[in-house]
C-alpha cells in the first residue's frame, strides 16, 4: 500500500487539499471577525447615539448631578453590558455607571477626540491581558440650537472578553469542522485511489516478480524505472532469441543446401514450400520459380506427382524410382507425411542412384557376357565329345581333328579366364610391375610383329610413325605391350577390310603419347564414356568375340604407369585411341 511512486502521486493532492482547506478556514475566520467587529461597532454606536439623546434630555430636565442620571446609567449599563459614562465638554466625568470611574479626564482619549471632530468616535483599547480589551465608543451630545455645539459626550466601553471568547469558539469550530471534512475527503480519496491504482500496483508487482525470477538486480527505487528496466530486458531477450532462431534457420538452410540428396517440402495443395540446391540443380529450375509453384509444374515427372498423391491419400511413406533422361540420372524418391500442428506437410527426398544403377548394369552385363562367352565353347565341347563318344573315337584321323578343336575351345576359354584373373590382379594391385627405361619403337616393333599376320589376313594397311629420337620411357615392357596389343586387336576387329590403321608415337611434355587411329566403324557417342568399363561391349548384337575386358585391362595398366588413356571416335568414321607413359628420367 505504501508504494513510493503512488505515494508521490497522492501526496501532492492531499497536501493541496489540506492547504486549500486551511486557507479557506483562515479566510472565513478573518472575514467573520471583520463582520462581527463592524456589527458590534454599529450596534454600540446606535445605542450610544440614542442614549446620548436621552442623556441630553435628562441633563436638561434634571441637571447634571442628578441621581436619576446615575440610576439610568446603571440600568442602561446592565442592558448594554457596557460601561456608560457621561462626559462634559471639557472631558471631565459627569456621571458613570461604574462607581469607581468618577475621576479622570477623557478629553485626550482618541475616541473623544474623534467624536469632537466627527460626532462619533471609536477606539479599541488593548490591554496586555485580554480580559481588559475594551471597545470604546464616544458620541458627542449637541444642544438643540442650529449651531449644535458640543455640550458633552456619551462614552460606552464594552469589555471584549466574551466577544473574544465567542470569536475563539467560532474559530475553533471552523477549524475543527474543516479538519474533519478534510480528513473525510482525504480518506475517501485514498480509498478511491487504492482501488483505482490496483492495476498499476499489480503491474509493478508482476514486474518485480519477473525481475526476481530473472535474478536481475532491482535496487532502483522508482517503480516505473523498474518497469522500464524489465521492458529493456525483455526486448534484449527477444532480440537474442530472434538472432538464435535466424542462426538456426541459416544452419539448417546450409545443411539442406549442402546435402547431396534433393529435399522438398510440399504442402497439402501440392505446392512447393521449400526446395534445396540439389533438387534445384536436378530439376533445372530456380528457387524463386519453384517456391509456391505446383509439384507437377516444377518436377515434370508423373511418377513423383503420383507418389506424392499416394502419400497424401494413404498418409504413409512411399517410394518410387525414376529416370531423368535429359540428365541421364536415376533417382529414387521417398515421400513422407509430416504433421505440424494442424497443417500437413510432405517431405520429398530425392536420392541419386545413378552410380549404383550403373554398377548394377555393369554387373548384369558381366554375368550375361560371361555366360554367353562360356556357352558357345562349352556347346562346342559338348558336341565334340558327344561325337567322339558316339563313334568318331574309332577313326584316328577324325579323333585327332576333333580333339584339336577341343583343344582350341579350351584354349579360348583359358584365355578368357586368364584375362579375368589378370584384370582382377591388376585391379587389386597384386600385379607386379617392373619398370625399366625402354625404347618406344622397341615396344611398337614387338607388338606389330605379333599382329602383322592378322593385319594381312584382313587386308588392312598398318602404318607406323615413330621418330628415332624419342626418349626412353619408364615402362613395364610386357604390360605396356599388352596395352598396345589390345588396342591393335580392337582396331583390327572393328575396321572392315581395306581399312587403314595408323600407329603414331610423339613426345608431349614429359610423356610419350602413343596413338592408334583406325578407319573402322567407330563408337557411338552414348557408349564412349563407358568404353573402358569391364565387360562393356559396344555392339549389342554381340557379333564379335571376346568378353569386353581388353580396354579395361589396358586402362588399368596405363594408370599403373601414371599415364592417361583417351579415345576419340565418331560412329561410322573410325576411332583414335591414345595413351601416355612417362619419360624415363
Amino acid at each position: 500500500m505504501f508504494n513510493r511512486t503512488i505515494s508521490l502521486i497522492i501526496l501532492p493532492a492531499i497536501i493541496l487539499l489540506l492547504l486549500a482547506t486551511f486557507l479557506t478556514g483562515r479566510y472565513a475566520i478573518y472575514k467573520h471577525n471583520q463582520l462581527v467587529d463592524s456589527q458590534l461597532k454599529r450596534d454600540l454606536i446606535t445605542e450610544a447615539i440614542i442614549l446620548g439623546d436621552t442623556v441630553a434630555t435628562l441633563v436638561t430636565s434634571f441637571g447634571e448631578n442628578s441621581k436619576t442620571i446615575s440610576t439610568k446609567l446603571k440600568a442602561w449599563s446592565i442592558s448594554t453590558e457596557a460601561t456608560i459614562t457621561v462626559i462634559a465638554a471639557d472631558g471631565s466625568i459627569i456621571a458613570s455607571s461604574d462607581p469607581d470611574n468618577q475621576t479622570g479626564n477623557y478629553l485626550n482619549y482618541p475616541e473623544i477626540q474623534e467624536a469632537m471632530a466627527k460626532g462619533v468616535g471609536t477606539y479599541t483599547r488593548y490591554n496586555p491581558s485580554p480580559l481588559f480589551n475594551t471597545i470604546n465608543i464616544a458620541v458627542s451630545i449637541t444642544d438643540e440650537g442650529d449651531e449644535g455645539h458640543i455640550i458633552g459626550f456619551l462614552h460606552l466601553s464594552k469589555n471584549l472578553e466574551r466577544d473574544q471568547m465567542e470569536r475563539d469558539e467560532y474559530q475553533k469550530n471552523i477549524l475543527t469542522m474543516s479538519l474533519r471534512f478534510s480528513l473525510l475527503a482525504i480518506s475517501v480519496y485514498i480509498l478511491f485511489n487504492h482501488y483505482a491504482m490496483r492495476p498499476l500496483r499489480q503491474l509493478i508487482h508482476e514486474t518485480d516478480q519477473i525481475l526476481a525470477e530473472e535474478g536481475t538486480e532491482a535496487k532502483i527505487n522508482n517503480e516505473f524505472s523498474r518497469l522500464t528496466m524489465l521492458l529493456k530486458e525483455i526486448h534484449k531477450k527477444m532480440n537474442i532469441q530472434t538472432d538464435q532462431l535466424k542462426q538456426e534457420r541459416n544452419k539448417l538452410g546450409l545443411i539442406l543446401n549442402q546435402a547431396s540428396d534433393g529435399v522438398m517440402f510440399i504442402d497439402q495443395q501440392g505446392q512447393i514450400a521449400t526446395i534445396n540446391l540439389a533438387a534445384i540443380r536436378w530439376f533445372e529450375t530456380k528457387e524463386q520459380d519453384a517456391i509456391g509453384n505446383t509439384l507437377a509444374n516444377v518436377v515434370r515427372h508423373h511418377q513423383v506427382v503420383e507418389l506424392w498423391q499416394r502419400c497424401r491419400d494413404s498418409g504413409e511413406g512411399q517410394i518410387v524410382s525414376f529416370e531423368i533422361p535429359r540428365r541421364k540420372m536415376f533417382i529414387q524418391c521417398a515421400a513422407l507425411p509430416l504433421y505440424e500442428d494442424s497443417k500437413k506437410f510432405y517431405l520429398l527426398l530425392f536420392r541419386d542412384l545413378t552410380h549404383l544403377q550403373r554398377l548394377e548394369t555393369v554387373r548384369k552385363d558381366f554375368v550375361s557376357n560371361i555366360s554367353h562367352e562360356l556357352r558357345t565353347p562349352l556347346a562346342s565341347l559338348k558336341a565334340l565329345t558327344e561325337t567322339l563318344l558316339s563313334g568318331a573315337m574309332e577313326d584316328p584321323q577324325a579323333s585327332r581333328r576333333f580333339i584339336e578343336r577341343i583343344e582350341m575351345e579350351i584354349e579360348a576359354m583359358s584365355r578368357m579366364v586368364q584375362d579375368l584373373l589378370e584384370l582382377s590382379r591388376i585391379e587389386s594391385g597384386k600385379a607386379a610391375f617392373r619398370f625399366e627405361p625402354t625404347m618406344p619403337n622397341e615396344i611398337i616393333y614387338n607388338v606389330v610383329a605379333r599382329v602383322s599376320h592378322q593385319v594381312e589376313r584382313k587386308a588392312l594397311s598398318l602404318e607406323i610413325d615413330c621418330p628415332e629420337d624419342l626418349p626412353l620411357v619408364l615402362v613395364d615392357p610386357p604390360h605396356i605391350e599388352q596395352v598396345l596389343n589390345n588396342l591393335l586387336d580392337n582396331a583390327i576387329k572393328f575396321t572392315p577390310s581395306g581399312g587403314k590403321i595408323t600407329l603414331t608415337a610423339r613426345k608431349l611434355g614429359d610423356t610419350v603419347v602413343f596413338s592408334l587411329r583406325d578407319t573402322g566403324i567407330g563408337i557411338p557417342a552414348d557408349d564412349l564414356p563407358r568404353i573402358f568399363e569391364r565387360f562393356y561391349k559396344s555392339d549389342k548384337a554381340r557379333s564379335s568375340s571376346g568378353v569386353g575386358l581388353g580396354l579395361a585391362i589396358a586402362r588399368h595398366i596405363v594408370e599403373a604407369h601414371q599415364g592417361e588413356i583417351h579415345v576419340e571416335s565418331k560412329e561410322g568414321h573410325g576411332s583414335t585411341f591414345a595413351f601416355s607413359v612417362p619419360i624415363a628420367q
Partner: protein
Amino acid sequence: MPFVNPRETLDRHIQELLDEILVMGSMVEQAISESVEALKRRDINASRRIYVEDQKINEKHYDLENKTLTLIATQQPVARDLRLLAAILEVGTELERIGDYAKGIARINILMGEAPLVKPLIDIPRMAEIGLNMLHRALGAFVSKDVETARAIPKEDDTVDALYNQVYRELLTYMIADPTTIDRSTYLLWAAHNLERMADRVTNICERVVYVVTGEIREMDVSDDEFASKSHLGAPGENQR
C-alpha cells in the same frame, strides 16, 4: 462457411487441370523415350510394357476430359478462361495421340522380333530427342502462357522433318540394295514417321498457346514455301497436319 471468391475457385481448378496436363505430358514423354530406347536395345519386354502402359495414358486423357467438361458446365467461364479450357481439351487429345505413337513404336519393336536392325539407329533416336525436347518446352509454355517460346518452338520442326527425309532416303537405299530388308526397313520407316508426326503435334500445341493468349489461330508451319518452290522430291507425309 466463409464466402469463397468464385474467381479463386476457378483459378484453382484450372491450375489443377494444367497440372494434369503436365503429368500426362510426362507420361507421354516417358513412353516415347522408352519406346525408342527399347527399339535401340531390341528389348521386346520393355516394348510390351509400354504397349500395356498406354492404357494408363488413355485413362488419364479420359479423366482430364471429364474434369474439364465438368468445369465448363459448372463454372460457365467466358473469354480467355473458356479458350484455355478448350485448349486443354485439345492438348489432351494431342498428347493422347503422341502416346499412341509411342505405342506404335513399341509395337514395331515387337513385330520385328528377333530380326536385327537393318542399320544402327542414329537418326531415329535423334528425332525422338529433338521432338521430346520440343514437347517438354511446349507444355511448359502452355502452362505458363509463354507466347514467345510457343512461337519459337515450331521452327525446330524443320530439323525433325529433315531427319525424317534422311531416314527415308537411307532406308530406301537399303531396301533397293537388299529386298529382304524391305520388311524391317518399312517398320523403321513407320517408327520414324511416328516421330515426325509427334513433332507436328507439338506445333499444334504451340498454336494453341498463342490462341489462348491472343485469341487468334495462326498456322505456324514455317516451311510451307519449301514444298511449294521445290519439286516433289520431298518425302510423302511431310508437312501434313
